[in-house]
Every structure is written in structure tokens, then in C-alpha cells.
């Protein structure tokens, strides 16, 4: 049995009369890549802040590396690398200086940090920018620098809150590649995201959250298996006809979901279903067969889309 790095039972956070996190249980094992998937406002970031020992829980038990964040905040934070949703780099300082001062906050010696900076710059692909002020960097570069900075203390757990939100596709892929490398090195990753593809790519295991509660917990593949069919057929009839077609199509599919712009039909074999529909003389404007994704799992669990 691998040791549990993070252990939460009945974890709750209440702001005034708003319940942000509503009694959740989970464990994260060493070396695991663990994800929190859910829409904005699901309670993911709040959970991350509590784990990061920067927000105090209202109730429940929580241990991180065997310690209670309420009692041992600084001791726990010494072992965490945190990549917040919003970059908080020092804009006036250069790329290297940002890594340097951050290392100093962990009590690291100048010698140790200066030896580490070239590796981190290489990891973040920022060698040529090392003496440039952060202000001048692109969004993707700042993100990579924030990750590099969080690694200066060689953390046991790296926490990433919406790591690729706001990045263009190319920058996202570069970032994913860097995170894969860390995973290969055995760093425990904790990731929140509202992008299903990101969760599928990066997480060994994840919990699906909505309104502060855990809706499901498993590996991405198993979640899809448990909560969806193998394939999905997406049909568009035009917005005025979608609703009336739902009733006609309902008997044909294992499950049907109506979205504002399209109808989703769940089936083991999407092509076969499409042929069946065509044989009945029904012709949608467009059709698409795809594999089920975590988006479908979320829709099934909550009746809502992840990105609205």
C-alpha cells in the first residue's frame, strides 16, 4: 500500500452562509497525479487553498504529509509547490530574480538557488529570457515561470490551479509536456481544471466536483466507462427543430441529452446508430460520431456542461 500524502474527511468550508466545500472525502497517494474537475465555483480552488495551508477549513479533518495545516502551516507549505490560478510574479524583477527571491522565501541558501536556476530556466524554456523583466513575457512564458519558480524548493507535492486557463493551444501543449516530465520524476501532482481534455491527459485519478460536493471519483477511463457509453453521436437539426427531434430519437439511444445547439445520443456504436436513424428517414443538418469524454460524465452527473 502506498502511503497517503493527503487525507481528507468531511472537509468543509463555509463563507458566511455560502457552503463552498461541502463535506468532501479523498486521499491522494505519493507519486499520484490527482485532479479536481468541475465548473467554475464548484469549490476546487477553495479546496486547493485549504490543502495549501493558506485558508482555514470550517470543519472536517485534513492531514498533509501527516500534519494538520491549521497547526503546522509553514511546515506543510515548506513541502508544497503552488501554481495559483492567477500568476503573482514580481513584474519589476527579472525571470531569474523571481526564481531567486522565491527560493529565499523557503530559507534556501543563495548557493543552492543559484545552482538550481539554470535547470529551472531550461525546464521552463526561458534560458534566453533570464535577464528580462517579467513584465515583458507572454502569458505562456509567465505560466511556465510560475511553475519553474514553484519547483525551486523541490516540493513533494505540486499544486496547479487551472494551469492552462487563458493559454493558446500551443502554449497548453508545451505546458502539458512539462507537467508530464514532472510526473515521470515521481512528483505528486494536484490539478484543478474545468477542461476535460486536460484532466484526461494529466490525471491518474480525479474527483468530479459540483456545488462543493464530490459527484464521482475514479480514473478518467473508468469514470467514462461507468457513467457514459463508448461513443456519442452528436446531431444538429437547427435550433428550432432540436427539441421536437428529441422525442422522436429518444427510443433509439441508450441515453439522450439536449443541449442548446445540438442533441447528444449515447451508444456503444455511433455509426450504427446514425445508419439506423437515416433508415428512418431522419436527416440532421450535421452529424458527428466521437468517443465519450469526461464532459459526458459531467453532463450525466449534473445535467450541466462543464464550460457554460
Amino acid at each position, binding site marked *: 500500500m502506498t502511503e497517503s500524502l493527503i487525507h481528507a474527511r468531511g472537509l468543509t468550508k463555509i463563507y458566511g452562509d455560502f457552503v463552498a466545500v461541502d463535506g468532501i472525502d479523498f486521499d491522494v497517494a505519493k507519486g499520484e497525479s490527482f485532479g479536481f474537475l468541475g465548473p467554475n465555483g464548484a469549490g476546487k480552488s477553495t479546496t486547493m487553498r485549504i490543502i495549501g495551508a493558506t485558508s482555514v477549513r470550517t470543519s472536517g479533518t485534513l492531514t498533509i504529509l501527516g500534519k494538520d495545516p491549521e497547526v503546522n502551516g*509553514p511546515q506543510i507549505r515548506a513541502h508544497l509547490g503552488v501554481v495559483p490560478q492567477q500568476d503573482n510574479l514580481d513584474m519589476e524583477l527579472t525571470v531569474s530574480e523571481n526564481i531567486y527571491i522565491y527560493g529565499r522565501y523557503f*530559507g534556501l541558501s543563495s548557493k543552492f538557488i543559484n545552482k538550481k536556476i539554470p535547470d529551472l530556466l531550461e525546464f521552463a524554456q526561458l534560458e534566453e529570457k533570464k535577464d528580462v523583466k517579467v513584465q515583458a513575457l507572454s502569458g505562456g512564458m509567465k505560466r511556465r515561470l510560475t511553475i519553474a519558480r514553484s519547483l525551486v524548493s*523541490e516540493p513533494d507535492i505540486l499544486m496547479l490551479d487551472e494551469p492552462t486557463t487563458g493559454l493558446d493551444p500551443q502554449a497548453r501543449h508545451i505546458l502539458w509536456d512539462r507537467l508530464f516530465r514532472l510526473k515521470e520524476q515521481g512528483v505528486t501532482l494536484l490539478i484543478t481544471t474545468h477542461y476535460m481534455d486536460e484532466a484526461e491527459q494529466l490525471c491518474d485519478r480525479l474527483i468530479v466536483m459540483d456545488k462543493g460536493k464530490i459527484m464521482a471519483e475514479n480514473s478518467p477511463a473508468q469514470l467514462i466507462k461507468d457513467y457514459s457509453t463508448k461513443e456519442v453521436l452528436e446531431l444538429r437539426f437547427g435550433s428550432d427543430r432540436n427539441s421536437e427531434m428529441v422525442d422522436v430519437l429518444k427510443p433509439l439511444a441508450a441515453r439522450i441529452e439536449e443541449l442548446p445547439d445540438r442533441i447528444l445520443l449515447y451508444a456503444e456504436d455511433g455509426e450504427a446508430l446514425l445508419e439506423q436513424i437515416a433508415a428512418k428517414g431522419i436527416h440532421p443538418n450535421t452529424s458527428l460520431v466521437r468517443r465519450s469524454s469526461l464532459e459526458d460524465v459531467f453532463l450525466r452527473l449534473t445535467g450541466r456542461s462543464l464550460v457554460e
Partner: protein
Amino acid sequence: MRNNLRNVSKYGAFHVAEARVRNMAKWAGIILFEAVINPTLYLVSIGIGVGSLVNANQGSAGVGGVDYLTFLAPALLASAAIQGSTDEVIFPTMAGFKWYKTFFGMRSTPLTARQISLGVFMGSMIRTVVSVVIYWIVLYLFGALESDTAWLAIPAALFAGAAMASIGIALAGKIENEDFFFTIVGRFIMIPMFLFSGTFYPLSKMPVFLQFFGWISPLWHAAELGRFLTYGYHLSPLAIAIHISVLAAMIGFGLTASFRIFENRLEK
């Protein structure tokens, strides 16, 4: 162990101050230029210009029996300390909480909110020492400092700088919307303080209701101490005790309030 937690809990605030100094280094040219040009302008215009008028009319009797520049110098020095230290806490605190959110990065490390606040304070005092020493040298070169104990104006000025910095950091930590903040601080705190703190003439020459500004102003308390220390201006032991206590109380109050404000914003 690679990260030395014991060092952080002991020296955390120093690391924050170190980061502040690195930040200031980017503005070193401007900071130094200001430190030299400000006293030069004041001394030429007010010290020498107005001073010749004062000396010609009332004579040294107007300001307690000394040359006008000698009277003015400790107050100008304290005012420079206040200006530098306030700037160096208000801007970093606004940047830390709002503009760059750097404090939220710091609080993800072993640092505590209290250390972050104390570190910003210490950083501002480092700059203030530099500014005040340069200011003092300029005063000296203008011949505004003649006594053997003239250097004692420096600690008195720093005392005022520390009082304003500690209150400034609490105030800036409390502000979430800075739209009018800088205007208010500038027009309704800094300028009146500069004008009504017995800077240019003894406080006792003003109507009593205006003297009130002096009593609550760190500038007046530090200027009085500075005059006492530099040229033997008469202060009773009680007055000395009051000036020191008021400044110390301001520092204590400011820092305590800033600790609480930083903890509320960073650790809840």
C-alpha cells in the same frame, strides 16, 4: 534538509526585505536623485531665501535663538524620512495585494502574513536610512548643521519615518480600492502634516486649534527631538518622554494593526 524551515521562521522577514531591496535597486537612480535634489531645492528656496528674511527681520529670536537653517534642518530631515518611508510601504503593499498580487505568492511559501508585513516595513526603512543619510550630507554641505551632535538628527528623523511607515502599511493593507487613496494621503495627510508640524516656525506660534495637527504628527515630535539633539533646543524631560512615547506608540500601533490586516487578507 534542503529547505531550512528554522531559517524561515527566524529570518523570514529579512528575506522579504531582501526582495524589496532588489526591487528598489531597479529604481536606485531615481531614489538617489530624489534624495539629493529635494534637500537642495528646499535649502535654496526656503532655507536660504526665507531664512534671510527671518534672520533680517525677527532675527534668531523668531526661532528660538539660532540661525533659521539650523532650526529648519531637523524638521526637513524628518520630513524626508517620512516621505521616503511612506512611499516605500504604500506602493509595495498595493502591488502585493492588488496590482501584482505578489503577497499571495509569498504566503504559499513557509512565510507568515506577519513576516510579509514586517519585511515590507524593514525594506522601507532600509531605503529611508539611505535617503536620510544623503539628505543629511546635503544639509551639512549647506552649513545647516554646525554642532558636534548634528548627526543625532538622523536617528530622530528615522524614528518619524518608522512611525509613518508602520501606519502607512496598515492603511495601504486596508485599502481595496485605491482610486482616491493616493490623493487623500497626499493632500489631506502628507501636505498638512508638512505645513502644520512646526516645520517652518515653532508650533507655539500657531493658533491652538492648528497646533492639534502637530500633536498627532510624527513629524513634529521627531523635529522637536531633532532640534533638542542637534543644537540644545530646550525640551523638558517630560516633553522628551512624550515625544518618544508618541512615536513609539505609533510604531507599535501601526505594526500590530498591519499584522492583523495582513493575516486577515492572506490567511483566512
